[in-house]
């Protein structure tokens, strides 16, 4: 069999394989059906060509030539049908039907009037093949077929011009190239010199392979790139082929008698030998071509190199970000480029640097870390913007997010991934000219983004370390160090005028949370509060954990009025939190007290002091409010006076002095037990119990500074403290159900010898309940630490009581009390 026969068989196998593939891909879809028909026409052409090549007699050759001449015409017509299916153009349907009828007509002509197609055959001198003579109908058929081809080309070119989609344009380029190949193959048959060679078969096979590739690969490489590289690479192949032919010629000349040297097997052996010989050259040759080809894109490499150099010296994140956007815009010549990085404070991705026309509300352009776009980018290196409207995973995008993409004219996203973590992304628009990015440019930007990610990550690490040094680890807000830095910075700013606001804030009664719910719960409360504060402040305000449960909020540019507005917002947020979550975590509401102040440049140094003073005042008034609330509650439910309600009132008082926390409850327990020992019963015991809880109620009027003073009290301070028993009496007198406790509260600081206050009563003139309270109150106070002394031991306290029996305390009561507590201590010791 001749070489051409092998080519035909090979082509036929290819076509059959392609037809199967196409039908398997989607036989119900018009496009694939049209493709299959077109390939079938090609296969028919190859089959008849094969029969021509193996014909032994002129009659056989004539018959198959007549059959074969139908092929080119039908192929052009079915190519047209395929193009119109590819374009989904229903207007071409009538022309498609005419074409099909025309193909049938040609077939009939071939079968029944073949002499008009191929009148005869003659043997080719050099190849020995039969060569057909062309009949008068052939040019006519060819021209009609060409008309179909011309329409197909016209449609494709029109689509190409109208499309801005690079992939679609790429596919059209493939189709046009394929058409060119068919045309060359068909035209070659008209040249008597070329007619003897299977040029049409080779070009048609290439054509079919090319189209199939274009169809199956929806995301094609840039055709220009593929062609250029392909052509350059094929230079080597051409060289090898030329050498092959030379060698063949040499063999033919030298061994003219050598039988079968033109056989396929011989060619293969020669080609194999040459391939081995030139294989070592191939790699170096390709490298040279690559250098030549990519050299045109030297600018890109320059960009990479410049960035690599710059990123070593740039530690500042802002500088680095600006460098990246500038390099991309200058080198790739795109109209807009923006670099989004994760904001360490809000965890959102926001624009860190941008080149090109900026949208008016640039600051609002951001993507939260739970945005679907961020999640998709975390899994991909790049994303064409048009996929935003395609991918179902992005259906959760908000309208504002989609608008952000639109205002930035994004054509492509490039992820900045470092160890599978998305640290940011680049948005890149089309070229300044409006031309979309080429595949090559996209690939380069993807590669560049990887480099950028590494450098940005280094800068971020540096930034993070700096931030850690100024951040409170528990709450994540700034610490006091940063507060001082910020004040210094503000000083400079205030020199040009303006003002600075400060809110000092603390958790009312924070120690209570720690004591009752434990320190982890206290920490949780502080974290939640820090979060609420950050949500409440304006962007640019600085939230600081000042120490313990105290927070400071610096409000640059704020007046006192603005400060109050922010404080009000905080109050609302805290209220909302209480309603929504607070009471699920704690039985008590979260209450914050705030002091707000604002200053100009001159008295900046006093700002903290002044705001702190405001906080102090707020705290005082909150304490009073707290007490009033308890009193109101008591008055409201007059009929339902309960131990818990009175206890609540007592606790409200104790909040002012951490040293007396729980004191009232303990005195209550001791007094009730002692009262029972001394024979009190029923209402008397109840009255004693309530009085014990409320005996220090009047301390609400004593300033906290005095209550917590470490040193000796002045005479005035002492007088203020002593007034608490009278004030307490006055408060309980206002509550009907607590009337009976008033004398006990008033006299619980009287001394047995008459040296006490407020009335200097003596001995049994002091109400029994008040005498009991005097003993139990002193005993519990001695066992507790005070600002001015540490706690006494049990034995020391009992000793003190006994020492002052008869002078300060009623001796009978001291006797009864010591008996009571000692027996309990014994029992506890025995146990």
């Amino acid at each position, binding site marked *: 069999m001749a070489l051409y026969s092998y080519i035909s068989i090979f082509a036929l196998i290819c076509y059959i394989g392609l037809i199967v593939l196409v039908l398997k891909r*989607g036989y*119900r*879809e*018009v*496009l694939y059906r049209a493709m299959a028909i077109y390939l079938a026409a090609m296969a028919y052409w190859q089959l008849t060509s094969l029969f021509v090549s193996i014909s032994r007699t002129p009659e056989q050759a004539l018959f198959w030539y007549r059959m074969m001449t139908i092929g080119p015409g039908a192929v052009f017509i079915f190519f047209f049908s395929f193009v119109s299916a*590819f*374009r*989904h*153009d*229903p207007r071409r349907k009538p022309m498609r039907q005419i074409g099909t009828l025309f193909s049938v007509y040609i077939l009939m002509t071939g079968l029944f009037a073949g002499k008009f197609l191929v009148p005869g055959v003659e043997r080719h001198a050099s190849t020995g093949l039969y060569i057909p003579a062309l009949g008068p109908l052939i040019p006519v058929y060819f021209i009609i077929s060409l008309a179909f081809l011309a329409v197909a080309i016209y449609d494709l070119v029109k*689509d190409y011009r109208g*499309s801005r*989609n690079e*992939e*679609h344009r790429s*596919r059209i380029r493939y189709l046009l190239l394929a058409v060119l190949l068919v045309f060359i193959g068909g035209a070659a048959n008209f040249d008597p010199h070329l007619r003897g060679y299977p040029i049409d078969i080779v070009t048609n096979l290439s054509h079919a392979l090319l189209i199939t590739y274009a169809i199956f690969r*929806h995301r094609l490489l840039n055709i220009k790139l593929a062609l250029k590289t392909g052509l350059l690479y094929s230079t080597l192949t051409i060289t090898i082929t030329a050498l092959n032919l030379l060698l063949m010629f040499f063999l033919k000349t030298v061994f003219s008698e050598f039988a079968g040297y033109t056989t396929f097997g011989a060619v293969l052996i020669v080609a194999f030998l040459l391939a081995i010989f030139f294989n070592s050259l191939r790699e170096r040759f390709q490298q040279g071509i690559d250098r030549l080809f990519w050299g045109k894109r030297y600018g890109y490499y320059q960009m990479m190199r410049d960035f690599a150099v710059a990123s070593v010296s740039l530690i500042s994140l802002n500088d680095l970000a600006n460098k990246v956007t500038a390099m991309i815009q200058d080198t790739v010549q795109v109209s807009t480029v923006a670099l989004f990085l994760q904001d360490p404070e809000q965890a959102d991705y926001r624009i860190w640097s941008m080149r090109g026309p900026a949208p008016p509300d640039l600051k609002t352009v951001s993507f939260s870390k*739970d945005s*679907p776009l961020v999640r998709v980018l975390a899994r991909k290196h790049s994303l064409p913007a*048009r*996929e935003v*409207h*395609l*991918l*179902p*995973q992005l*259906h*959760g*995008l*908000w*309208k504002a997010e989609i608008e952000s993409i639109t205002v930035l004219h994004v054509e492509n996203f490039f992820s900045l991934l470092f160890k599978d973590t998305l640290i940011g992304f680049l948005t890149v628009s089309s070229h300044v000219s409006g031309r979309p990015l080429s595949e090559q440019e996209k690939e380069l930007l993807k590669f560049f983004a990887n480099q950028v990610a590494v450098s940005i990550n280094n800068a971020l690490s540096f930034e993070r370390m700096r931030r850690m040094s100024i951040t409170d680890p528990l709450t994540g807000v700034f610490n006091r160090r940063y507060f001082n830095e910020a004040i210094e910075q503000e000083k400079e700013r205030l020199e040009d005028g303006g003002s600075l606001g400060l809110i000092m804030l603390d958790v009312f009664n924070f120690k209570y949370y720690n004591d009752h719910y434990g320190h982890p719960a206290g920490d949780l409360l502080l974290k939640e509060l820090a979060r609420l504060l950050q949500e409440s402040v304006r962007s640019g305000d600085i939230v600081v954990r000042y120490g313990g449960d105290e927070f400071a909020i610096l409000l640059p540019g704020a007046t006192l009025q603005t400060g109050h507005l922010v404080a009000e917002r905080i109050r609302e947020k805290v209220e909302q939190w209480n309603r*929504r979550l607070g009471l699920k975590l704690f039985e008590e509401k979260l209450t914050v007290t705030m002091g707000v102040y604002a200053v100009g440049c001159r008295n900046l140094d006093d700002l903290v002091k002044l705001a702190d003073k405001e906080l102090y005042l707020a705290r005082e008034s909150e304490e009073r409010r707290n007490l009033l609330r308890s009193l109101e509650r008591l008055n409201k439910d007059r009929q339902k006076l309960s131990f818990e309600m009175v206890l609540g009132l007592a606790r409200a008082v104790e909040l002012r002095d951490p040293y007396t926390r729980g004191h009232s409850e303990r005195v209550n327990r001791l007094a009730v037990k002692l009262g029972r020992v001394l024979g009190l019963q029923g209402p008397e015991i109840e009255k004693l119990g309530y009085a014990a809880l409320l005996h220090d109620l009047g301390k609400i009027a004593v300033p906290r500074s005095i209550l917590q003073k470490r040193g000796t009290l002045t005479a005035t301070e002492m007088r203020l403290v002593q007034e608490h028993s009278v004030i307490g009496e006055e408060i309980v007198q206002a509550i009907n159900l607590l009337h009976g406790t008033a004398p006990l509260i008033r006299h619980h600081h009287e001394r047995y010898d008459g040296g006490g206050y407020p009335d200097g009563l003596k001995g049994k003139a002091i109400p029994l309940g008040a005498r009991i309270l005097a003993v139990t109150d002193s005993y519990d106070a001695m066992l507790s630490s005070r600002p001015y002394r540490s706690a006494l031991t049990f034995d020391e306290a009992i000793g003190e009581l006994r020492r002052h029996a008869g002078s300060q305390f009623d001796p009978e009561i001291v006797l009864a009390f010591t008996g009571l507590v000692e027996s309990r201590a014994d029992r506890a010791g025995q146990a």
Partner: protein
Amino acid sequence: METAGELLKQGRRRDIWTKYCGFLDLTLPEVMDIQRRLLLEQLQLLGSSAIGKEIMGGKTPQTVEEFRETVPLTKYKDYAHYLLEKDESVLPEMPYCWVRTSGRSGEYRFKWVPYTYRFWYRTGQYAIAALLIGSSRKKGEIVLELGDKVLFTLAPQPYMSGEIMVKAVLAHFPFEFLPPPEVAEKMDFFERIQLGLEMSMEKDLNIFYGLASLLVAVGKRFEEGTGRSSIKPLTLLVRPRALARIVKGLVKSRLQKRALLPRDLWQPKVMILGGMDSAIFRDQVEYYWGENTMEGYGFSEGGGMSYETWGRKGQAIIPDLNFMEFIPYKEYLKEKEDPAHKPRTLLLDELKPGEIYEVVITNFLGGTFIRYRVGDLIRITAMGDPEHNIDLPHLEFYSRADDVIDLAGFTRLTESSIWKAIANSGVPYTDWAARKEYRDDRPLLKLLLETPGQDAAEIREKIVQAMMNLDSDYRDMVEMLGGSLLELEILPPGAFQYYMEEMQRRGADLAHLKPPRINPSPEMIAILRRSD
């Protein structure tokens, strides 16, 4: 945004599938994430609108949990004072169009529902998705072509079907409607169908969506030999394509030795069946028209809800048009007994296959309805279709919530189950209605049937038998109580036609020309009886 039509022109078939049908590839956690995110966006919009503030009590929930805890369930009456007046100033986003829908007869003459552009566009997107899925045999296959012919059988604008299934669909894909919408809108229903079928003789018929009963009626006319009566043989001479179609169809039917059927003339790529009768008539539709049928479920207040997929395991739920909550049937019943009871709801990932739920929706994309009780009961058929790699819950329509007839606590009858029984009984009928009534404190099903048959006892027996075959609970009830609790009343011939004419005289809305099949009011029944 590139539409399916544009993408197809560019040969981007994979992109078409991703954009329109990609939701089938979402995992349930991804769906829940989309639900959460779009709800949070919607809450922001609602929080700044008058209608949202009114319903949410002036507070904007910040989380899904808070939303479900604090916002009450609503019905149309909560919106009626604004929406019936088409007051756009109170809405969360400016509407693109207003869609009209019929309330249950007697409740409202009709209801107005605002559609934002985003909501309208995405509802149209899912209508295209339904056509793509219904016409394909596997994921990714696209057989729709530009200019495919659609038989116009739906109510025109401003009904949802006209607004979405015609206008929004056309915004995505250039189909050719037969007859064209501008012509169809001026015609009455029967004229429209007649002209559409005539045109499709010449042009072809690729797509149908509408009522299954209509396709069956057309199929029956063909079978009885009356289907071609409207085509004048002489006119075929000047309509060669119609002639060729008929010749081809006749050859096909003669070869199979049966009457000419629609499927001999047309091979629709997809027939989307909506409405209560889909399940009942589906087999007949496939006999007359071919097998490419699919079911869909939607409602005006929420656009599309679900579409059937290849596995026929029910309809896959659309994840991004509405935030979906479901009231378990037990909760629904508890509320019926005690109206003060606040039913709890479940989310998509908490549903259980086989259970019945009432649907509650909150529109996304700037829509208006918040925790809105649609009034429909659905049954979850599966939590996914592993065979086709679909992770979305699947449902089937069960009944209108108010249309469940509970018979002595034994069984629950729905419009669908009664209709199936009548159809399976073989009793010829024009139409029917049913109502729960009491005789001597005993509940029973009163069935009003327009039938040419006269022997009421025999007809009743056939229907009871069919119901027993369909519903084992009903069978148990008959056996235990020794009675069928079915009372049959044969309506005079033309009763339903008379009802329709009477309603037309009274100026009723298109959707109220027929009485509801379940629990029609005594006044409606009186009109049906008056027909003789």
